[in-house]
């Protein structure tokens, strides 16, 4: 059966068909290929991977270096499982020797942390997922 299937698949490909069906008595094999639409216009130069859900994420308010804690010795502001309100400080972004606190801006529980201490972040970058 495998041999026959290979042959059928090869026939399909070699002759640029979209489907073949072969019937032997009560047995039927049907092989089909999903149509590939031709690219009519080139893809736009930048294809930024668009994550599905951005509504419950805390995003970077600016550019700089991200810190998880108020100082190197301290515990992180927040970890997975913590409850946050809009005024909760969730991190610090540093640029040009100036530290700016990042506020959660929404309420919920930290589900996921996307950045590590010392990472470079840019405006709009996803920092935390809230659930």
């Amino acid at each position, binding site marked *: 059966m495998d041999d026959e299937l290979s042959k059928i698949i090869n026939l399909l490909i070699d002759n640029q068909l979209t489907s073949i069906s072969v019937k032997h008595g009560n047995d039927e094999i049907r092989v089909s290929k999903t149509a590939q639409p031709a690219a009519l*216009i080139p893809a*736009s*130069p930048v294809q*930024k991977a668009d994550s599905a859900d951005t509504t419950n994420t805390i995003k970077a308010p600016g550019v*700089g270096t991200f810190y998880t804690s108020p100082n190197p010795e301290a515990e992180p502001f927040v970890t997975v499982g913590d409850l946050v309100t809009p005024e909760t400080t969730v991190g610090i972004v540093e640029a*040009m020797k100036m530290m700016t606190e990042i506020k959660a801006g929404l309420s919920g529980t930290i589900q996921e942390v996307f950045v590590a201490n010392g990472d*470079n972040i*840019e*405006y709009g*970058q996803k920092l935390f997922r809230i659930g």
Partner: protein
Amino acid sequence: MADLMKKKLKILIANRGEIAVRIIRAAKILGMQTVAVYSEADKNSLHVAMADEAVEIGAASAGDSYLNIRAILAAAEISHADAIHPGYGFLSENAHFARLVEEVGLIFIGPTSQTIEEMGDKEQARQLMASAGVPIVPGSADFFESAEIGLREAERIGYPVMLKSVAGGGGKGMRLVSQAADFQQLFELAQSEIKNAVGDGRMYLEKLIIHPRHIEVQVLGDGQGKAIALGERDCTIQRHHQKVIEEAPSTKIDPETRQEMLTVAVHAAEQQQYRSAGTYEFLYQGPGQFYFMEMNTRIQVEHAISEEITGVDLVGAQLTQAAGGGLPEVARDNQGRVAIEARVVAQTAGKINFLHLPGGLGIRVETAIYPGYVVPPNYDAMILKIIATGPNRVTALQRLREAIGETVITGLKTNLDLLIQILNHPDFTTNENATDIDWLDSILDAEEEK
């Protein structure tokens, strides 16, 4: 030459659109690394795709992004950029920005913050130029409040004169005086008008320059007292003070005056110890009659036409100089080459569906648009520059006409039709070139009235 680039600089381009593409291209040719910055609205921009790295710096509005000094310096910090090229517009002539760049130890690709500050103040610039031997628009020696002093000054300057008030704006306290006999009455009218409005009766005079051409000189300085000129540009075709078509060289100035303008500009640049690219703008009224208007202490939109006739990569020269190199060699003779640029402007925002750009001998395009690109509404409307070069003006014009005629942009409205109109108008095309800086406005205003 090889050890010119002792250090491969990493350049952050603090701009967007076609000039960002231009700078990135020039940097790549020189083997330099590039960092693009972009707003939320520019995620799919060409300059972002072309640069080695890109940092999103803020929301769509210019204030949140391309004018956001803090975000741009932060982007330079995290990307470890060595230098910032500000392009034109945005922060390119912001002395505060230039100073901050210097303070954080980065190279600002342009003049010093001090130069930017000096030339950004119109009055200070005039004084500086006057002391460097550059002719400035004749004006009254000081402010005055009596008609007698005004009359004396007007005689000295020569009629016609514009009588203006120090506190004025929007035409208040301003009168055109064509002859001495009218002075007293017009002075009294103007002064009482502004005095009643704001209580400040100080007046001054400026010579009225009639039907001037806008002639500007491109310079490059090494910041240490040496400067070169790369010819002049004629930017007389303007709509509401916005340049539409520029050409190099100017066909309307005699060789003696041209030489004088170039010499005066180079001398001023050397006196100022000017660094990087800059342009001295003049109003030209006739042989020997030219007056300094202002200086643009940055690379300009129309720099490409000077590049075409001289063969010098101006942006590349800026980058080379920032990396420690010297000024480029410029040939004395451009062998009659003429380059003309047309600025294509989007009149609506929108998505570009179909795009065909022209080509052929002597045709150059500078743009950041591509099929499928969405032109955002937040920024400057110019989307494309088409530059035609030829061995003489007639050929350059023919090539530009053909190139514009061939260009197709669908999905939004552009000024392509207007450009064709100008390029076919006898005032513009003939050697007489009977245009001045009010010409395009008067033609279009007359049409609108019909």
